[in-house]
């Protein structure tokens, strides 16, 4: 299981717990003190990136698409920040 945390400059703290399989996301948990509206969609967002390649640009693209499709508002962090922290957790994998 990989773990990482990333403090967004002028924003919030993101923490990621990650399981990967063949360089793809098997399971991810994104926690932290950011704001995401509607809140319940965090779990759907986590599900939506399962199976995605552990690549910052690709992940940011998936997260952006999810946000757009579901009219999600993210405050204190950006899709790129989430993607960055997920990849960090992937490289901390043991």
């Amino acid at each position, binding site marked *: 299981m990989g773990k990482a945390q990333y403090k967004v400059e002028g924003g*919030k703290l993101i923490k990621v717990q990650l399981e990967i399989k063949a360089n793809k996301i098997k399971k991810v948990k994104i*926690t932290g*003190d950011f*704001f*995401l*509206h*509607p*809140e319940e969609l*965090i779990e759907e967002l986590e599900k939506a990136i399962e199976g995605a390649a552990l690549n910052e640009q690709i992940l940011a693209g998936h997260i952006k698409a999810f946000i757009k499709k579901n009219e999600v508002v993210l*405050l204190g962090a950006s899709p790129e920040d989430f993607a960055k922290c997920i990849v960090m957790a992937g490289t901390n994998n043991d």
Partner: protein
Amino acid sequence: MIEEWRLLDTGLHDAFYNMALDEAIAVARSKNLVSNTLRFFRWEPSAISIGYFQSMEEEVDTLACNARGIDYVRRRTGGGAVYHDRDGELTYSLIINQGHSLISKDFQETYETLCSGLVHGLRLLEIQAEFKPINDIIVGGRKISGNAQTRGMNVVHQHGTILLKVDPSLMFTVLKVPNEKIRDKLVKSVEERVTSLNSFLKRDVSFDELKEALVKGFEESFSIRLVTGTLTKSEEQTAAKLKAEKYATNEWNFKR
């Protein structure tokens, strides 16, 4: 005609009821059973609330809390972990219909608008408070109030804290620290970054004095009149149900 909002002072309650009641008021507001509401409340016993997206295990030293009789609860709003001291903090909630002219589609803008009532109230106490994005109020560069907002059922719910006194070393005995070596450093950093009414004004400010100033602050900033009211039966019933079925359950509090 000046717009009238309901003012509630629900006093001391446990963390689970406090969070349940906020949601119950939002439910009642969404059904138009009550008017827009400002609620003041406090915590007995002292408690920690964590943000919707935080992990209880990662943020809270639950064993230390259990030993000291401190409650811990997950909020329906995002943001960070907060230690709510029974005697050192006042908490407020605003529950407003989303169509109200104070509410913008933009969250950041709405934080600033709703916090302007607090800022104005604090200034009436001779505290040169200012709003600091994303969701803080600061004085002399130090945080004195944290706020968090959620929306749903066509209702905006914002709650937040105002510190009367602060004890950073107690905070870090109940909040988790990444490792023991940096505990002192964290305590020191909170001492530098956070202030309270009492330490800033160098006198003891009472809850009543603070509430009176905030009521005036909200009334003048929002052009409203706050009228002392009571909870409805339906709010009390919904709160009891939400406490038992949601906020007091491990399923909710440990869900992330």
